[in-house]
């Protein structure tokens, strides 16, 4: 199968018909990484995802990475022949995944109920912005707008300026990963019952989890979850290790070669990490006895007893700032491992590409040859058995049409209906 070495991975042997555009490409990629035979369907003119940012003059890196590991066929869904071909392929598929928008495939006779009829075992995964029906199903949407509707945007502010999204489009990616998980749950149900089902993921509903429970504050009657304001130990203390209740700027510090993420964590669960930090400073001769003696595990109680106040906090912060300013990210990383610190340099993609840790874990892989060669993240899980197999670059338009039709349907290329013709490159 797949015209190469035997495919390994826990999903080898399963077939996925992938009708997604850039919004849903990731779901199929994840299944392909685990061994499934994923066939990406594009219109003969090429997928819209081939224009998705970031891109060079000749390629989209979104396409190159999230369509990697798939085979590609070109099918014109506007023609009867093309739709017929999709229905025939769907009869042989274990999974179908799509992200065309509410009702789009149903209007072409390729919706869930249509294909369920021809293949009752099919697991049909669909990804939409808000859902297929409901008051906002027809809303115009985009990454930023979904980030706003789903909850993670509103609390993420830098001072008085408006809330900030990530400068990479992630709303659909979170939901596409959910869709892959949901489809596998449906697969387990199919194993028991012999029946497939519809798996329906909405991006808006997927993003609540990306707020660390904040979206639930209103429902549970927490009227004042003022995450950004919880910086004073004299008010309700933030006892999370991540400092999720502390304004983001208070966790950023300058160091010799950039910025550092570090939260002065307190409370029984995580204050020990802060103690470790002051112990490091003390070992380096940069922390007075009075300060290293503070037990951050017991800090909430010290505050209550009046033994620690805002001026002490200011002193701790001033000492920390002065200390970190003269340390490099590499020194801080080294200390973080030795002393167990919740303190780390802030890194960009160049740093990630050269990361010693990712390198040691064989994380990146290169697929394709010549102009098509791409190096990308690959081994997103390790284990005691073969799991991830990144085996081919993203397909060219219609690259595998004949091959896939032959394997899945047993047709010779000459018999392939016109829906795919004119696409061969």
């Amino acid at each position, binding site marked *: 199968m797949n015209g190469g070495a035997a495919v390994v991975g826990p999903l080898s042997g399963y077939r996925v018909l992938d009708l997604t555009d850039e919004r849903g490409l990731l779901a199929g990629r994840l299944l392909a990484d685990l061994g499934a035979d994923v066939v990406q369907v594009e219109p003969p003119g090429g997928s819209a995802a081939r224009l998705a940012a970031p891109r060079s003059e000749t390629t989209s890196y979104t396409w190159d990475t999230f369509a990697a590991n798939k085979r590609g066929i070109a099918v014109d869904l506007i023609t009867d022949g093309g739709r017929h071909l999709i229905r025939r392929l769907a009869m042989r598929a274990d999974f179908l995944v799509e992200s065309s928008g509410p009702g789009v495939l149903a209007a072409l006779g390729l919706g869930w109920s249509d294909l369920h009829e021809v293949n009752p075992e099919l697991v049909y995964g669909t990804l939409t912005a808000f859902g297929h029906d409901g008051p906002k199903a027809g809303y115009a949407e985009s990454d930023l707008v979904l980030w706003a509707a789903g909850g993670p945007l509103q609390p993420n502010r830098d001072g008085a300026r408006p809330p900030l999204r990530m400068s990479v489009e992630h709303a659909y*990616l979170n939901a596409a990963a959910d869709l892959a998980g949901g489809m596998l749950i449906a697969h387990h149900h199919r194993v028991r019952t012999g029946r497939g089902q519809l798996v329906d*993921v909405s991006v808006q509903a997927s993003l609540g989890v990306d707020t660390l429970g904040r979206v639930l504050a209103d429902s549970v009657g927490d009227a004042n979850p003022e995450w950004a304001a919880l910086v004073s130990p004299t008010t309700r203390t933030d006892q999370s*290790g991540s400092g999720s209740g502390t304004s983001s700027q208070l966790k950023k510090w300058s160091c010799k070669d950039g910025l550092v993420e570090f939260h002065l964590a307190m409370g029984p669960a995580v204050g020990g990490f802060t103690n470790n930090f002051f112990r490091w400073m003390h070992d380096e001769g940069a922390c007075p006895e009075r300060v290293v003696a503070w037990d951050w595990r017991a800090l909430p109680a010290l505050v209550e007893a009046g033994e620690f106040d805002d001026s002490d906090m200011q002193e701790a912060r001033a000492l920390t700032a002065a200390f970190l300013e003269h340390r490099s990210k590499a020194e801080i990383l080294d200390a973080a491992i030795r002393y167990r610190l919740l303190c780390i340099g802030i890194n960009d993609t160049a740093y990630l590409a050269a990361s010693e840790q990712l390198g040691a874990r064989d994380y990146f892989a290169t697929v394709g040859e010549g102009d098509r060669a791409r190096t990308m993240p690959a081994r997103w899980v390790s284990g005691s058995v073969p799991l991830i197999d990144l085996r081919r670059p993203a397909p060219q338009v219609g690259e595998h049409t004949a091959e896939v039709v032959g394997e899945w349907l047993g047709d010779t290329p000459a018999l392939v209906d016109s829906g795919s013709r004119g696409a061969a490159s």
Partner: protein
Amino acid sequence: MTGAALDGLKVADFSWVVAGPLVGRALADFGATVVRVESSTRVETARMMQPFYDGQPGAENSALYGTCNAGKLGVTLDLKSGQGRAVARDLVRWADVIVESYAPGQMAKWGLDYDTVRADNPSLIMLSTSLMGQSGPWAKLAGYGNIGASLSGYQDLVGWADRPPIGPFGPYTDYVGPRFSLIVLLATLDQRRRTGEGCYLDVAQSEAGVLLLSPQLADYFDRGTVAQRRGNADERFAPHGVFACRPSDSADRFAAIAVCTDEQWAELADEVGGPVLAADPRYSTASDRLAAAADLEQVIAAWAADLSAEDVQARLQRRGVSAHVCASSADWSRDPQLAHRGHLRAMPHPTFGTATVEGPRYLLSEAPGVVRRPAPELGQDNEYVLRTLLGYSDVAYDRLVADGVLV
């Protein structure tokens, strides 16, 4: 008759905080029996994290803990004691799946590492999820998801171009990691069904995080491009931003607006500036608008400032322009679309009357997820788990209680 997708699946959940517990939560929604192991003397971090029921901090009051652990049974166990570890070993013999998220090496200290537990239970699947993974020079790096977000590049990618980065809201890799954990766990469960073989899985939250930056990494490897933060601007489209609207009861209100097509621009321009702006030839193409983004966004900002965020959303959506209120928790909990999907799930709770959690994020048409009960209170199911699931006798159970092991 058909039952739930994962009916009969037995999960021993040794995880904590967010990235681990969310995995078992998903399994429980679809029928698995999930036993969450905790300590009442070293209370896990999520229990002390907001939001809290009625705004009152307390180990039983966290809605975050509540949503990460709904549907599970709760056991408290002193893993420092030999008796406690013996109970844990029995639990592992009972289980099909172990999920754990302690620092690498911790499970081995308790005699619960994969090599040991697999000797008792060869078909077991054990999932470890950690910040950096179980191997490599930085495996021992401590941290929560904000550290993960630094190590996977996200802290640098959120912020204004003229200011230092602020990072995403909260521990971003804690949200991404469990999604990947669930996928690989379900895939290997299917493999086990076919082969009888168990396995060990090592999901590094930072690596899951970096996978979502695949396009940016491929761009770097290919051309040396380093991804940059740029506020709310888009590489291709303008206007594209978050705009302050009329405050409501002194609370800041914002709406997100993204113009992604020429048609959307014509509609937005007509709404904001009338036919003159809509017909202005200086802004007719996407690249024109990108070049003039600052001016255009100033015009929109002035328009939005006098309107409610709801009004901005309604006026633009009526015209097919993507716009939405920047949803607060209150907006979100009243969102008609989320309500339509039944996303929030309420259920009776012994202390609060009603517990509210997020529902499953995947709606299955035939065997939908069900949140069967609120998250456990500390030690709530000790007796049921030990006596009914593990088959301990009255004497053995009473001894463990008397010896202070189930704490």
